[in-house]
């Protein structure tokens, strides 16, 4: 049930500080879109506007439109809680719930939302853990605490937790930045599989990763420190990495930045 995201004229603030300005782009369903750009240019901020997590931060405020298929996420009468059920998120640092077991962590989304059948729960957990390539490693210790896993396993646990509620879109903010190359590879493979079912947006600082996993790549930049970040260009990944239409993109990708 992947959905298309259509952003137009999006500007986000932290209090009076404008973090990103006038961003428009389209993200196709069943594709992987990578966000790249220098630190502080607003990639995370933009990502968090896509499931209304931005307004959770004190002072967070958004202008503009985000259409999920044809519905404006910022339209009147839209419940941010339902938006977040449709648009899931994986964070930079693995954050399993420390009081819950591995099983409960994966089941958390369903349990906390209250709409599930008891008989289905075990199936959903198994399916999600398999989907996150974690099942074989944890099937014998589902009742052990989730924080007892390695960092890479914890991150895959968080992915399993996110996909267990069957969102339409999965947002990932630097999901591999704390992981070793092998865990990174596991998660990249996973992204390749997940894109059959979800629309995926991933923020990464790793150019090779963007080139490996994504279909489309968006380059963000900011003109100076303190200025709002802007979308420089978005294009097919191959083109961005071989023949970008903006000079700044080429400079950034080839490391000739600043």
């Amino acid at each position, binding site marked *: 049930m992947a959905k298309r995201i259509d952003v137009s004229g999006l500007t986000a603030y932290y209090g009076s500080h404008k973090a990103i300005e006038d961003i428009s782009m389209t993200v196709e369903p069943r594709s992987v879109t990578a966000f790249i750009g220098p630190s502080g240019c607003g990639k995370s901020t933009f990502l968090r506007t896509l*499931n209304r*997590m931005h307004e*959770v931060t*004190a002072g967070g405020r958004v202008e503009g439109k985000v259409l999920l298929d044809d519905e404006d996420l910022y339209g009147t009468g839209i419940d941010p*809680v*339902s*938006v*977040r*059920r*449709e648009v*899931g*998120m994986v*964070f930079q*640092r693995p*954050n*399993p*719930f*420390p*009081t819950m077991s591995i099983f409960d962590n994966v089941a*958390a*989304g369903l*349990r*906390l*939302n209250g709409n599930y059948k008891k008989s289905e729960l075990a199936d959903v957990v198994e399916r999600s853990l398999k989907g996150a390539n974690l099942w074989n490693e944890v099937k014998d*210790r589902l009742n*052990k*605490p989730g*924080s*007892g896993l390695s960092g890479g396993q914890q991150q895959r646990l*968080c992915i399993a*937790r*996110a996909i267990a*509620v069957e969102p339409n879109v999965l947002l990932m903010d630097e999901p591999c930045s704390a992981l070793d190359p092998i865990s990174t590879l596991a998660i990249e493979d996973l992204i390749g599989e997940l894109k059959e079912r979800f629309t995926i947006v991933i923020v990464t600082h790793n150019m090779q990763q963007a080139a490996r996993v994504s279909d489309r790549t968006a380059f963000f930049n900011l003109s100076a420190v303190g200025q709002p970040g802007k979308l420089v260009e978005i294009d097919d990944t191959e083109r961005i990495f071989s023949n970008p239409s903006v000079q700044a993109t080429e400079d950034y990708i080839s490391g000739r930045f600043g």
Partner: protein
Amino acid sequence: MSTATTAPKAASTLRGARLPKWAPWAIAAGSVAAGIGISVAAGLHSNIQWALIAAILYILGTYVIAARVENRRQATDRVVTSLVWVAFLLAVVPLASLVWSTVQRGTKVLDVYFLTHSMGVVADSETGGGIYHAILGTLQQVGLATLIAAPVGVLTAIYLVEYGRGNLARAVTFFVDVMTGIPSIVAGLFILSLMLMFDMEPFGFAGSLALAILMMPVVVRSTEEMLKLVPNELREASLALGVPKWRTILKVVLPTSLGGITTGIMLSIARIAGETAPVLLLVFGSKFINANPFEGAQASLPLYIYQQYGSGEVTAYDRAWAASLTLIAFVMILNLVARGIARWKAPKTGR
């Protein structure tokens, strides 16, 4: 060639002279002996004076000897370490002696009979009698106070940490701070003025209300600290799953901090269990068993201790000490339970 000549020298810069392991003990023994010696010579009789002289000698001796044998940095390190030890002993010695003298004097009349009988018709000058009525009163008054203060306090803290923005939150924080400083007698007088307005006789629940006023700010403060310790990432993880905020607080934030919150509540119970002044004003005290906290005067342990001690009879002294021991035991048990819960409910990290 160069390694051969430099190696021993390089090693020697890392290795300095060290005092042997037993040196601090030797210095301590020496300074205690010297402390006693000086005191005897000067004709001082107080144990406290001896101990202070010994402590000062110990710190001075440590510094001088360590500076001689080792170096200035090591000497400073040792002095600070010994200061910490001296401070620790200064804190522990009175506590230990308090517990010791309470146990010594309290066990004289403390037995099952004492715990299960009231003062009834026993006069202060007679032997016999017990504290059942006081235990009952304390349990009921403190229990009711907790029933009021714990939910209100926890909910206030949740408001302040999770929802509070702007002026209202700042005002609540300010009043909680002010409440923390209210002397217990003032809380008692406040409730007393209400009681006088409605022309009421002393009863247990009035005491509970005053105790709840004293307990609430402590609960708010400790719960607030515990909630702030819950990492924001956990809240965001839950919100990002599409869980409503109130459920996130209920199912993720509170369970994560439950151990700390219960510890805080237990400690605040321990604090109010020993309050005498408001109970004296509002509950008045009684020699008889009164199991109804909503009508008639009741006893309570601290009040019983105060009244027995104040009567001046030797038999009453013994009862006062035994009741003190019971009260200390009650508080200690609460503390142990709090620790147990904290450990049991702490977020699990093991594999």
